[in-house]
């Protein structure tokens, strides 16, 4: 964690605002780039943006300042000095200083975002803001309005949303108590806060030394504004510029559903969902910087945010549209590595992520297949897509792949260890060589993928997710698939153990368990204990049966993306996989009886 003052070209300066307040400002980065103004929240200082700013500095001009009461800025004593119109004055004075003629791209987190909503809906400042990225800080006006509507015309949905936010806002009430918060922050709370937050947010750097004072004075922000605005909200608080909303899915302080109706107040809205807690500027700087940068670029180029791809819009209706939108929110700009991406589930997952605007590294041992998936992914709107030819069972090749991915594209946000081979036939017909090949690909491929990319994710400390393709055969024993089932049961257990280990790093792990899905795998499944002729016929028949089943890999891809978004531990996919999963828990005897049934041949 560097300081903003250590950024290239950093210049510190003060801006004098009304009522004698002096604001500590910093300007840094590329002076020729668009100006990005970063506004911090409570109880932080502008340094909360240091990690994000470091990633933006080469292309953008960065401006940040300490809000009155925080960091190195003045700390007026009067609560009234913290009212929103005072903060708007501060903002205007800073704009006058850093962008007297042009417009800025405003980014606010927490209370930085709350006050930014005031700036972007107040005429004198709104017209000087080209775009607004809001993180974990709703408009008090919007909050008041939707809360009132929830009370006036209660629906179960609105009611439960209000109740949820009521509970999450305990700290707001607490901060309204006189004196106590100040005492607490200057005492025991200020001391333990960093550790508490580090635990809850998984990764977080050391606190600013000014924390206790920032927090104590910052309480006045709440006291000066919350009660007043909740009582008398503005009805005309509409943000006309492009707005990018970033919602962390584990925000302890804000209900996600708070933003359900935000489109009413921000007509040009792009939504993003990040896997993380409240302090994503600290815990997810890579992704935050990417989203801010892309958004700023789009607005600079087109004057508006890029619309969703044509194909996506066209194909979308109802549930599919909601799913596609959810995927775009969650995966746009994220880097995903997928093995076995040349066909079947791997390819389908790559394409779903491509539609969502992810960046893709697509790995297959067959170069042409991987390249083909890259082509299709690019057509569908992948931000980037690269093919890599690697046999996942080759430890050295996997190490080289990992090193190359890191050097070229960075640490992946999502790794899908999907490459696998099928093998059918009785245990006694399965030769040691066939066992080895099965374990090499199906188990070792996953071990290598988890080990190499997992280590990267942990080291980066910005979360991530690993998906391992197991199988319904991982919990449904079968006399027809002993080697396959064994390899997949191992993958399932490995995933469960890894999930337990990685939870403390904010990295999710999912084992995906498709059932009978029509993928290329059956066409290449090795049927041991049969002649070549018979094997060919079995392959054709099985493939046909799977196709007739009509459960395509696209549905597995949907399940994978959903499981990642919800951080599901084990995700059965097809109805029979769900049934087998349930049966493995409640009636293993039934599964054992099923295990003795001959596979259709």
């Amino acid at each position, binding site marked *: 964690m560097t300081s903003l003052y250590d950024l290239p070209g950093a210049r510190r300066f003060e801006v004098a605002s009304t009522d004698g307040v002096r604001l500590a400002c910093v300007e840094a980065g590329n002076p020729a780039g668009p100006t990005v103004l970063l506004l911090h929240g409570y109880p932080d200082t502008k340094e909360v943006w240091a990690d994000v700013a470091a990633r933006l500095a080469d292309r953008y001009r960065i401006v940040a300042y300490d809000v009155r009461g925080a960091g190195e800025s003045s700390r007026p004593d009067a609560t009234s000095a913290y009212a929103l119109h005072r903060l708007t004055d501060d903002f205007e004075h800073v704009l006058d200083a850093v962008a007297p003629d042009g417009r800025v791209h405003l980014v606010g987190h927490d209370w930085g975002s709350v006050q930014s909503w005031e700036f972007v809906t107040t005429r004198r400042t709104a017209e000087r803001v080209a775009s607004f990225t809001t993180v974990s800080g709703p408009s008090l006006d919007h909050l008041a309005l939707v809360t009132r509507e929830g009370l006036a015309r209660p629906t179960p949905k609105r009611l439960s949303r209000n109740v949820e936010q009521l509970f999450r806002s305990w700290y707001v009430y607490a901060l309204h108590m006189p004196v106590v918060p100040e005492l607490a922050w200057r005492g025991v709370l200020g001391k333990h806060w960093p550790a508490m937050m580090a635990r809850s947010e998984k990764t977080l750097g050391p606190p600013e030394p000014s924390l206790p004072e920032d927090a104590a004075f910052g309480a006045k922000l709440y006291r000066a504004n919350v009660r007043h605005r909740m009582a008398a909200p503005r009805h005309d608080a509409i943000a006309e510029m492009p707005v990018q909303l970033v919602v962390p899915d584990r925000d302890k302080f804000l209900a996600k559903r708070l933003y359900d109706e935000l489109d009413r107040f921000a007509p040009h809205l792009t939504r993003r969902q990040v896997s993380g807690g409240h302090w994503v500027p600290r815990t997810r700087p890579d992704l935050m910087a990417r989203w801010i940068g892309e958004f700023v670029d789009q607005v600079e180029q087109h004057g508006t945010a890029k619309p969703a*791809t*044509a*194909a996506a*819009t*066209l*194909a979308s209706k109802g549930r599919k549209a909601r799913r596609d939108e959810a995927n775009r929110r969650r995966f746009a700009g994220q880097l995903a590595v997928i093995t*076995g991406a040349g*066909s*079947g589930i791997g*390819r389908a997952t790559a*394409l779903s992520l491509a*539609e969502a605007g992810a960046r893709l590294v697509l790995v297959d*041992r*067959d170069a*042409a*297949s991987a390249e*083909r*998936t890259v*082509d*299709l992914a690019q*057509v*569908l709107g992948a931000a980037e897509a690269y093919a890599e030819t690697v046999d996942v069972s080759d430890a050295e090749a996997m190490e080289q792949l990992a090193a190359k991915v890191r050097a070229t594209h960075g640490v992946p946000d999502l790794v899908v260890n999907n*490459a*696998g*081979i*099928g093998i059918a036939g009785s245990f006694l017909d399965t030769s040691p060589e066939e066992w080895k090949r099965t374990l090499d690909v199906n188990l070792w491929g996953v071990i290598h993928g988890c080990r190499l990319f997992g280590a990267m994710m942990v080291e980066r400390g910005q979360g991530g997710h690993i998906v391992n393709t197991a199988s319904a055969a991982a919990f449904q024993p079968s006399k027809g698939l002993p080697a396959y089932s064994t390899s997949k049961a191992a993958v399932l257990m490995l995933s469960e153990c890894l999930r337990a280990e990685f939870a403390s790093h904010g990295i999710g792990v999912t084992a995906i368990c498709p059932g009978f899905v029509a*993928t*290329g*795998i059956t*066409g*290449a499944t090795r049927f041991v204990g049969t002649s070549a002729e018979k094997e060919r016929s079995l392959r054709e028949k099985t493939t046909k049966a799977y196709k007739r089943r009509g459960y*395509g890999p*696209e549905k597995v891809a949907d399940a994978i993306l959903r499981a990642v978004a919800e951080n599901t531990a084990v995700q059965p996919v097809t109805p029979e996989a769900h049934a087998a999963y349930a049966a493995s828990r409640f009636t293993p005897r039934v599964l054992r009886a099923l295990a003795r049934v001959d596979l259709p041949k």
Partner: protein
Amino acid sequence: MATPLMAARAGVSGPDIDGFRTVQRLAYDCAEAVAAQLRPGVTERQAAAMMRRWLADRGVHDWLHLPFAWFGDRTAFTGFKVPHQFFPTGRRLTEGMPFILDAAPIYQGYTADIGYTSSLGPNRVLDHLLDDLAVHRALIVEAVRAGRTLRQIYLDVDELMARQGYENRHRAYPFGVIAHRVGKISDGTVRPHAFGFGSRALLGLLQDGVRGHREGWSPLWNPRKSSDHPATPGLWAVEPHLGFRGVGAKFEELLVVQEDGDAYWLDDTLPHLRRWAGRGISGSLATGSAPDADPPGETAARAVVATAEAIAKEAV
């Protein structure tokens, strides 16, 4: 669109060939003319009616089937379960939407059955699908020349689609056909009815089916055992249909199979061929089309088989 047909025996004469080519061109001209008139808000029913009117104005009064039009994800037959879903609906065209126009006019006793795919304004996904259809066109004629059975060729096309990452959407047609035979029809005044199919056409299907059953061939081209024979001489309306994430694309045109087993596409000047030429695309196999091209020798046959085998050996 797959349609039944009248029985047609092999060895189509030179004038007959010209007759089929004329009606096929007429049908494609119709599709291009109607496509040029499509605007946002037009419905499938309106587009189908436009085609019918355009052709009727030019002397077409008999049909193998009435024109079809599919818009948006209906081009990929998304969610199609029952045959009546093929008929035109009130679905409206919007900007960037793909569409397929399908017509089967009978003109002066000659039948055409064509499919024309495009989009209203640019559509990157559709462009990709249309580009990739070229190799299917090449594969099919080469494989027929090489004497592979219709069933094998169907599976070759299937595998190629799988490699390309596409779904086989002609599987959704009645009987899952990729092609059906087309014949010369004695001139008459019969008008289509019975769900849009000509009654003589239905009768012809039955007659052809009965004879084929006796002689060991099928007037339909699908992956069943009954198609496990080389193409019978005559004309086949072939329509490989790709589907990909809610976008579908196909062409449908006539393939001429001669008594000696040689084969060629009836016409190499159709809109999709001009489009490929404009984009510098040829199928990855020799594009063998007209009968005056090199006769299909060992080389071509081997290439087809090699491709098919490569497909079969595909790794996961």
